[in-house]
């Protein structure tokens, strides 16, 4: 029998809301807001996948006429590319792990009754929601969605006349990004204040679960990075609508002087990538924290090197702000600058390797339980290594110049930033679904989902490396027009079929999610026999998280297989075992 130490005073910020609107729409409860973020990301990921499927269809059958859409034009391909990238990076990879699971579980895992500023938390979600709507609206305005890619490189993005979609569609794209930045900043403010000021008694920094560390560091990165992206967006809007020339040099379009003078497209790249590289870690760090958590829980072992994991995440976050130049090796930068950025980029391999070896160390001689959250956590490690290993290649300026505008780069970032993070989201869903809903997800469907996703992911993205090494350029919409690409079309075709199957597999997940809500087996209070605070409270957690109590923490978060303990796990709130061990 576990004994939990709780202080008895109620201390929640606000009474439980009554009425549908206050309870489920404009809720101040971090748990409801977390679910809202998750549902937004879930919608976004299916939109993003649909767009990617259209792109893959167009690559293989460029003249095919699709139901309702007709034939996809080359410029429409670039619009799909732009919105796919933007939605996936911002509204999925940034939104679900941080806004979704972070919102729901950070306060509970540190023993707080809510976020520090619940109203701000609600505003943060609705700003993000509005940003998503504005982003989608760019498809339906005259000219359609922008063509400039998710990186929005100037001068294309700065000139309304540079192509269809670069008019109102591009303005909406920038406004959407700016709104997203505001929402993300409000969220980051809440995460940092809550973590620093609302931890339960006994929850010292070094007793926080690694998930909390990951959300906390991610929030710091967001706080520093999104302000810079916002500034770049403001300058871009001014260039487009007020005639300033921050990013647009003097030049001509179709033989006509643009009216701009003296701007620098490289300035955009510097500002964008100063945000853009930390954004990679904003996407992946929460998944790293979660993988650490799950590998420990399902190996029934303490995480190998807890402090090393914390310092590795801090190092990754710190170094992440010093390497933006490696995205700009093609821009003609000084070889000395390129060398510096190259060395710093490879330095990130050190904390990344520490994390990887610690994950493997955690698995070593563990009593591993291969349940669905664990499968996806292991899948995350696999994808992180597979995607990460190509990073040092791209960090070499000379190699990058060869590979930069080829499919090698999408292969790299899809594996490490995209799918690895999404595996983290899946792992979190399977792990915390019982706590959120009181029901288990179906394990059989989860396994089918895992194997289809893992094999499908590798089938889609590993061949991209070979395309890149063969010199296949990115962003080409019509491969049949280029003779030397003909021999690569079978590989593209294979990837397209793999994408069909992988996306079909995601409907198994969606079905499982909805089906389990009603028909899933009833979950026990602590079905995974984990130690952290969310498993000490009722399922689903009450409005104030701990039912009028506040937990008191005595132990670290990864006390598994403790010698002398009556069970193979010791809850963080268990004072009896803490006294004997």
């Amino acid at each position, binding site marked *: 029998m576990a004994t939990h130490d709780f*202080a008895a005073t109620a201390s929640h910020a606000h009474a439980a809301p009554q009425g549908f609107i206050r309870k489920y729409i404009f809720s101040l409860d971090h748990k409801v807001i977390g679910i809202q973020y998750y549902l937004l990301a879930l919608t976004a990921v299916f939109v993003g996948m649909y767009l990617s499927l259209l792109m893959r269809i167009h690559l293989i059958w460029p003249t095919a006429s699709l139901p309702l859409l007709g034939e996809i034009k080359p410029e429409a391909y670039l619009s799909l590319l732009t919105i796919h990238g933007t939605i996936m990076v911002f509204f999925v990879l940034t939104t679900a792990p941080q806004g979704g699971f972070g919102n729901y579980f950070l306060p509970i895992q540190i023993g707080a009754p809510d976020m520090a500023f619940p109203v701000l938390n609600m505003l943060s979600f609705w700003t993000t929601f509005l940003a998503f709507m504005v982003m989608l609206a760019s498809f339906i305005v005259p000219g359609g969605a922008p063509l400039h890619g998710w990186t929005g490189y100037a001068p294309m993005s700065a000139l309304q006349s540079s192509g269809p979609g670069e008019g109102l569609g591009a303005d909406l794209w920038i406004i959407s990004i700016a709104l997203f930045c505001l929402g993300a*900043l409000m969220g980051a403010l809440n995460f940092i204040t809550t973590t620093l000021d*609302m931890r339960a008694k006994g929850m*010292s920094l070094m007793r926080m679960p690694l998930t909390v560390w990951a959300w906390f560091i991610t929030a710091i990165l967001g*706080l520093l990075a999104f302000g810079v992206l916002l500034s770049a967006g403001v300058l871009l809007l001014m260039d487009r609508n007020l005639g300033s020339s921050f990013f647009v*040099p*003097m030049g001509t379009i179709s033989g006509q002087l643009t009216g701009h003078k*003296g701007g620098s497209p490289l300035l955009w790249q510097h500002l964008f990538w100063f945000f853009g590289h930390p954004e990679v870690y904003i996407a992946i760090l929460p998944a790293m924290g979660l993988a650490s958590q799950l590998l420990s829980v399902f190996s029934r072992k303490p995480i190998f090197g807890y402090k090393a994991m914390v310092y590795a995440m801090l190092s990754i976050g710190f170094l992440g702000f010093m390497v933006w130049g490696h995205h700009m090796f093609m821009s003609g930068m000084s070889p000395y600058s390129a060398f510096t950025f190259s060395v710093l980029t490879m330095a990130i391999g050190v904390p990344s390797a520490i994390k990887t070896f610690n994950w493997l160390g955690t698995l070593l001689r563990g009593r591993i339980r291969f349940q669905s959250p664990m499968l996806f956590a292991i899948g995350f490690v696999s994808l992180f290594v597979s995607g990460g290993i190509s990073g040092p290649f791209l960090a070499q300026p000379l190699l990058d110049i060869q590979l930069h505008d080829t499919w090698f780069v999408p292969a790299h970032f899809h594996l490490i930033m995209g799918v690895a993070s999404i595996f983290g989201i899946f792992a979190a869903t399977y792990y915390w679904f019982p706590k959120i809903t009181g029901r288990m997800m179906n394990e059989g469907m989860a396994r089918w989902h895992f194997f289809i996703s893992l094999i499908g992911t590798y089938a889609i993205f590993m061949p991209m490396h070979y395309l890149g090494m063969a010199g296949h350029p990115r962003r080409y919409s019509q491969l049949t027009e280029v003779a030397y690409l003909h021999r690569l079309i079978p590989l593209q075709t294979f990837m397209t079929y793999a994408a069909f199957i992988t996306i079909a597999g995601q409907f198994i997940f969606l079905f499982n999610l909805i089906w389990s809500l009603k028909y899933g087996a009833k979950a026990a209070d602590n079905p995974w026999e984990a130690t952290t605070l969310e498993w000490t409270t009722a399922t689903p957690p009450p409005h104030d998280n701990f039912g009028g109590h506040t937990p008191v923490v005595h132990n670290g978060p990864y006390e598994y297989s403790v010698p002398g303990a009556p069970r193979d796990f010791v809850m963080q709130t268990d004072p009896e075992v803490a006294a004997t061990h």
Partner: protein
Amino acid sequence: MASFTPTASVDDPRLALDDCGNVPPVRGGGGDDGEPWPGSPDYGTRLRRARLGLFVALIPVLMLFVSFTSAYVVRQGLPSLDVRTNQMVRDWIPVQLPILLLANTCILLLSTASMEFARRQTKREAVLSPAELLPRDLFGDERAMPWLALTIFLGISFLTGQWLAWRELATRGYYVSTSPSSSFIYLLTGAHAIHLMGGVLALFVAGGAALLRRPAPTRSILVDITSWYWHFMALLWVYILCLLEFAH
């Protein structure tokens, strides 16, 4: 089956690196967006949390202006291509700032003084007020109100002065699109003005809280964080002015 032991006696955290994890949440746990509620944290905790939130919120504002500064410095030293002559030219022509900006600076610095008086006054009242017992205390906010009103007046005067300075620039033929240097003047002063408008809005909210006789601790926290924000805005303005005037 878990059993809950309703006790607050604990051992010392073995790995604690800080004090924060040792603060009993019964004193400080709970979200805070302004109004107290039964069982809400005490005044000190609420003030500390609000200040922490504000200081964290100032970081992205700082990053925004660091980013603008970086763009400003880079652009100044950047030669650009003149496609008509096909030559690299230096086209940075400094714009003489309106002298009115100096008067505006004095007004803003004066407003920080009045803001500080308002902050200290409301804090004194919050400490003296038996707010825990009488949420709608009877002391009012009379002594702080004139300082708040003066700060609002000076803030609006500053914004009006900035608008007049932009008018003067326009009269001299400098618009946003005229030259790179004029673009940056409008950008930096405009971004600062928008942030200061937020401060004026917060002052109105603080004033409204006093008029509506909100509890003294709530008013004090509102005025306190607005004052820190206001001081930051004044400092930021001095920085922007120095950047525009001296960074060539």
